[in-house]
C-alpha cells in the first residue's frame, strides 16, 4: 500500500539553507547537502528545496547544491523556485533533481506546465499553488497568490488546481499562505477542496505545528503527503514523531531502516 509521505522543505539561497521570514532577515542555517543527508537518515521520505536566490546569475550555486545533495541523500528531491522554462527545468533535473515545482511562471504562462510535462513526463512536474482564503461564504473560496505569497492573482485556487492537472501537473504542492509560519495547523478545507477535485497526489504545506496537524491533513484534507520546514529545522517536532502519530492513526507510513 502506498505510504503517506513526510517531506522536509529547505529554503535555499545562494546555495545555502536559510531561515527567516520568507525572503527577509535570512539567517544561514547550513549546507543543503548536509541537512538533506541528515533528514534522509531521520526517515524523510522525500525532500523539497525552495530556491529563494534573489539574483538569477547565482543560479549555478543552486545546481551545485542539488548535485551535492543527490550524491549524499538517496531519497527523491524536488526543486522549486524561479524555474521559468523547459531549459531551466532540464538543468535542474540534470543536476540531480527528480521533480521540479513550478509556481509563479506557470500562473503567468500555463503552457509551461504542458511543455515541461511533454518533455520530462508529468511525474516530474509539480505545480506549487500558494493560496489564501478570499471571502467568507457558505463554500470557502481560495485565491491563488504568487511571488512568494505577495501578489494576488484573482485566480480561484481550486479551478487553477484542476487546470494545472489538465495541463500535465503530476503532483500539486498546496500551501496555505494564511497558515504558513503560524503553526496553527494545515488549512484542511483548502486541501479537501483540492484533493476532492483532482486525482494526482496532493502535498499539504503551510501551518504545521505538531504531529496531530499532519494526521489531520491526510485524514481530513485528503493529502497524500505532508510538508513542513521550520518545525523540523528547529527540532521542535521530529519526522519520527510525525510518522508515529500517523501510524497510530492507522495511516500507512514508511518506517525507515538505518543505512
Amino acid at each position, binding site marked *: *500500500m502506498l505510504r503517506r509521505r513526510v517531506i522536509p522543505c529547505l529554503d535555499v539561497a545562494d546555495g545555502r539553507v536559510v531561515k527567516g521570514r520568507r525572503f527577509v532577515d535570512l539567517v544561514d542555517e547550513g549546507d543543503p547537502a548536509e541537512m538533506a543527508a541528515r533528514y534522509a537518515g531521520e526517515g524523510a*521520505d522525500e525532500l523539497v528545496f525552495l530556491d529563494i536566490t534573489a539574483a538569477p546569475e547565482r543560479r549555478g550555486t543552486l545546481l551545485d547544491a542539488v548535485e551535492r545533495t543527490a550524491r549524499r541523500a*538517496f531519497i527523491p528531491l524536488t526543486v522549486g523556485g524561479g524555474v521559468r522554462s523547459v531549459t531551466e527545468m532540464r538543468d535542474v533535473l540534470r543536476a540531480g533533481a*527528480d521533480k521540479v515545482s513550478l509556481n509563479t511562471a506557470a500562473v503567468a504562462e500555463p503552457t509551461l506546465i504542458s511543455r515541461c510535462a511533454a518533455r520530462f513526463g508529468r511525474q516530474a512536474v509539480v505545480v506549487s499553488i500558494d493560496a489564501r482564503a478570499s471571502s467568507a461564504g457558505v463554500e470557502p473560496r481560495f485565491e491563488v497568490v504568487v511571488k512568494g505569497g505577495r501578489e494576488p492573482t484573482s485566480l480561484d485556487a481550486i479551478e487553477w488546481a484542476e487546470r494545472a492537472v489538465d495541463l500535465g501537473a503530476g*503532483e500539486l504542492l498546496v500551501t496555505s499562505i494564511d497558515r504558513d509560519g503560524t503553526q496553527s495547523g494545515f488549512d484542511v478545507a483548502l486541501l479537501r477542496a483540492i484533493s476532492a477535485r483532482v486525482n494526482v497526489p496532493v502535498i499539504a504545506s503551510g501551518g504545521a505545528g505538531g504531529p496531530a496537524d499532519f494526521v489531520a491533513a491526510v485524514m481530513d484534507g485528503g493529502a497524500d*503527503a505532508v510538508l513542513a520546514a521550520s518545525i523540523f529545522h528547529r527540532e521542535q517536532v521530529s519526522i519520527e514523531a510525525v510518522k508515529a502519530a500517523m501510524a497510530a492513526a492507522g495511516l500507512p507510513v514508511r518506517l525507515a531502516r538505518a543505512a
Partner: protein
Amino acid sequence: MKDGGWIHQRSNGTGKLRVAVIDYGAGNLVSIDQALKAVGGDPFFVREADELEQAEALVVPGVGAAAPAMSRLERRRLVEPIRQWIFHGRPYLGICLGLQLLFETSDEDGAETMGILAGRTSRIEDAPTLPHIGWNQVERRRRHALFDGIAENADFYFVHSYAGVPEGITGDAAILGETTHGCRFVSAIDRGNVLGVQFHPERSGADGIRLLANFVRWATALAAGSGAQFAPMGAGGTGGGD
C-alpha cells in the same frame, strides 16, 4: 595461471564492475551514478553505441513517456546495440522506463518499444491517485539474488503511471515482484540476464542501495562467465510460441 583470475583484471584495472548507464536525456542521472559508485561499481554514461564496448553491465534508467525515449534512443542508434547486448546474455537492469521499454508496445503513446519481453506497457487501473508517486512495497513471487538481505516488507520509491504487463507463459514466469496501488501491477521482472524494476532503487534509501549492490554482485558473476547456467534471452526469442 588459469585460476579465473581474469575477473580481477578488468578493463579499468580497478576490479570494479564497469556499468554503462544509458544517457538519453531522460532525467536525473546523478543519483544512479552516485548509487552505483556507492556499491562499488564503476559507472559511466553512454550516449553512443561504441561506448558500450567498455561495459560489463548495462543499466537503462529513465522516467517519462516511451515514444520520446525511443526516438532519442533511435537517434543515438542505441536500440539495436541494447537488443544485441541482451540477446548475448549480458547483464541488464532496466529502471522504471528502462523496464517498460523491454516490452513490445506502450499504451501511453502507442510507441513501439524494444520487444525483448512479450507484453505491453499500460496504465495502472483503478489507482486512487496517478501518477503513483511515493513509497510502496514489492511482494516477491520467488527468491532472487537482487533482493538478498532486503526485508520482505521493505518499501521502494515509485514515480510512474504506467507499468509493464507481461504476456504468455514466459511472461508470467518473468514476474519477480508485484505492487498494489488500486490494482496489482508488475514491479520487478527477471528473465535470465535481464532484470527490471519499476521503482527507483537509486532513490529508495538503504534498501535501494542494497538492491543495487546485489545487482552489481550478480552482474559481476554473470559477466565473469559463471553465469553460463543463465539462458540468454536470445535463445527463447521474445516469448513467441507461448
